[in-house]
C-alpha cells in the first residue's frame, strides 16, 4: 500500500487506486465535509457487510441486493471504482436471486474493502 504524492492517488493494492483529491473535489473542496463523510462510511459499511452476510446465511437475496446497492453508491461516490464494481456484481446477483454466485464475490469485496478502510481510518485518525 503506497501513497503517490505526485498524483495524490492512494494505492490499496497494485491495481486499486483511491484518489483522495477526486473525492474532495466531489465535496466542493470541503475538507471538513470529506472527513465527516469518511467517518459516516466507517460507521455504516459494517452494517451493510453484516446485511449481505445475513442475506446469504438466511437465503434472502433482497437483503444482499439492498446492502450491495447502498455500498455500490457510496464506493462510487468516494471514488473507488474497482470495489464499487464488486458491489455492483453483488447487487445484480441479489436481483437475480443467485446467492451461490455471491460467496466468492463477497469474499473479494471484503478483502478489497479492508484495504480501503485502513486507508480512510488513517485519513480521519480513527481507531481500528
Amino acid at each position: 500500500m503506497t501513497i503517490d504524492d505526485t498524483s495524490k492517488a492512494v494505492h490499496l493494492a497494485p491495481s486499486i487506486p483511491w484518489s483522495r483529491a477526486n473525492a474532495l473535489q466531489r465535496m466542493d473542496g470541503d475538507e471538513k465535509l470529506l472527513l465527516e463523510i469518511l467517518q459516516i462510511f466507517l460507521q455504516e459499511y459494517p452494517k451493510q457487510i453484516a446485511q449481505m452476510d445475513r442475506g446469504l446465511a438466511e437465503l434472502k437475496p433482497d437483503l444482499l441486493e439492498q446492502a450491495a446497492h447502498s455500498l455500490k453508491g457510496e464506493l462510487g461516490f468516494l471514488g473507488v471504482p474497482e470495489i464499487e464494481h464488486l458491489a455492483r456484481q453483488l447487487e445484480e446477483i441479489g436481483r437475480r436471486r443467485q446467492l451461490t454466485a455471491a460467496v466468492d464475490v463477497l469474499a473479494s469485496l471484503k478483502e478489497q474493502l479492508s484495504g480501503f478502510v485502513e486507508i480512510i481510518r488513517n485519513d480521519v485518525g480513527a481507531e481500528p
Partner: protein
Amino acid sequence: MKILIAEDDALFRRTLEELLLPAYELQVAAHGDEAWALLQRPDPPKLAILDGVMPGLAVPNSAAKYAALPRLLLLTLFC
C-alpha cells in the same frame, strides 16, 4: 426556498445537506413515509430531491402520488 431531501443513505443525506445549506431551508427525511408527512404540512417545500429506491419511496409506484401534489418540483435520483 424550502427544499425536501429524502435519502436513506446517511452519507448522501449529509453531503446534500452540506452542499445546499445555508443557501436553502432544508427539510430532511430518511424514510419515504417521513418525506410524505413533511409534504403534507402547511407551507411545504417547493422542491423535493428524492432517492428513487429508498424504503417507503419506491419509484415508479410513488411517482404519481408525489407528482399529484400541487406546486412541487421533483428531482428523483437513481444510482
